[in-house]
């Protein structure tokens, strides 16, 4: 058995390495854009088939965010990002349940690899999300309010808490990305190890657990995105109440 944390490089285009997880990520993105775009163009007043299913996803998630944030405006702004990340991860995870995909090899490595088992994708998305969160925090709370959260000289205790706040922001990056990567990668390793011990039968019950976690983890990621964003926005609401 050989596992590697780094994805296999299939080839290079103008010095830029194309890895197996890279093309899978691009493929999933294009697939989502195509499916949603075509459905949008062929939209009917009375939905049926694929449109019905997609409307169920979009409206259901919008209602969920609206219920938990309690305002239509916040929900409208948060919904596109949260749902996009959710769809990218869930499609990426579920694609690995198509049998036989990893056995296609190319240049001595697997041609397909589940996109989320590459730490780069999860880290970049988490980083991107944290940068958006800082921007949201600045635009809603003002630049002074933003820095006051981290550097506060009003009392020694507040100063220490501000320092912890900085560590907390950095820890969010690790906690979000590690959680997702750990789940996806451990699933693959677990199935491979169990296949080695007792082929065909033993991995089956574990496949159900992995199926459950590959559906729940994207939802948790989207929910965490939502909760962190609401925490970033909340600063302003508290202020406007006190005025």
């Amino acid at each position, binding site marked *: 058995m050989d596992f590697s*944390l780094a994805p296999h490089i299939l080839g290079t285009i103008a010095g830029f390495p194309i890895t197996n997880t890279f093309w899978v990520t691009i493929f999933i993105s294009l697939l989502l854009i195509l499916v949603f775009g075509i459905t949008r163009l062929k939209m009917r007043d009375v939905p049926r088939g694929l449109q019905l299913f997609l409307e169920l996803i979009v409206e259901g998630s919008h209602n969920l965010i609206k219920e938990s944030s309690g305002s239509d405006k916040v929900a409208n702004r948060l919904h596109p990002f949260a749902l996009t990340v959710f769809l990218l991860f869930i499609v990426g995870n579920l694609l690995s349940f198509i049998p036989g995909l990893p056995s296609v090899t190319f240049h001595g490595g697997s041609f397909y690899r589940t996109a989320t088992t590459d730490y780069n994708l999860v880290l970049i998305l988490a980083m991107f999300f944290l940068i958006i969160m800082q921007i949201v925090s600045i635009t809603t709370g003002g630049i002074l309010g933003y820095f006051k959260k981290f550097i506060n000289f009003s009392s020694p205790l507040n100063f220490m808490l501000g320092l912890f706040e900085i560590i907390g922001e950095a820890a969010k990056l690790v906690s979000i990305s590690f*959680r997702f990567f*750990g789940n996806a990668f*451990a699933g693959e390793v677990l199935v491979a190890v169990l296949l080695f011990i007792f082929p065909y039968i033993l991995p089956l019950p574990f496949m159900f657990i992995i199926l459950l976690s590959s559906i729940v983890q994207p939802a948790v990621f989207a929910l965490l995105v939502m909760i962190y964003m609401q925490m970033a926005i909340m600063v302003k609401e508290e202020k406007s109440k006190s005025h």
Partner: protein
Amino acid sequence: MDIEAARVIAAGIAMGFGAIGPGIGEGYIGGKALEAMGRNPEAGNTIFTRMFVAMAVTESTGIYSLVIALLVLFG
């Protein structure tokens, strides 16, 4: 000690100890959620989704040790 043997032992220790905390925490969350659902069955759906979020957050320390163990083994 052989470096390979040390790596395997380290991964085992990291995963084994890392699983204790999340095990206790998730059991507690699950038990409390079931208790709440038994007391108020109408609120079952909202409790269930919140239970999942809380479990995922509790699980994170276990997953950190899992990632460390995997890094030690295959990194």
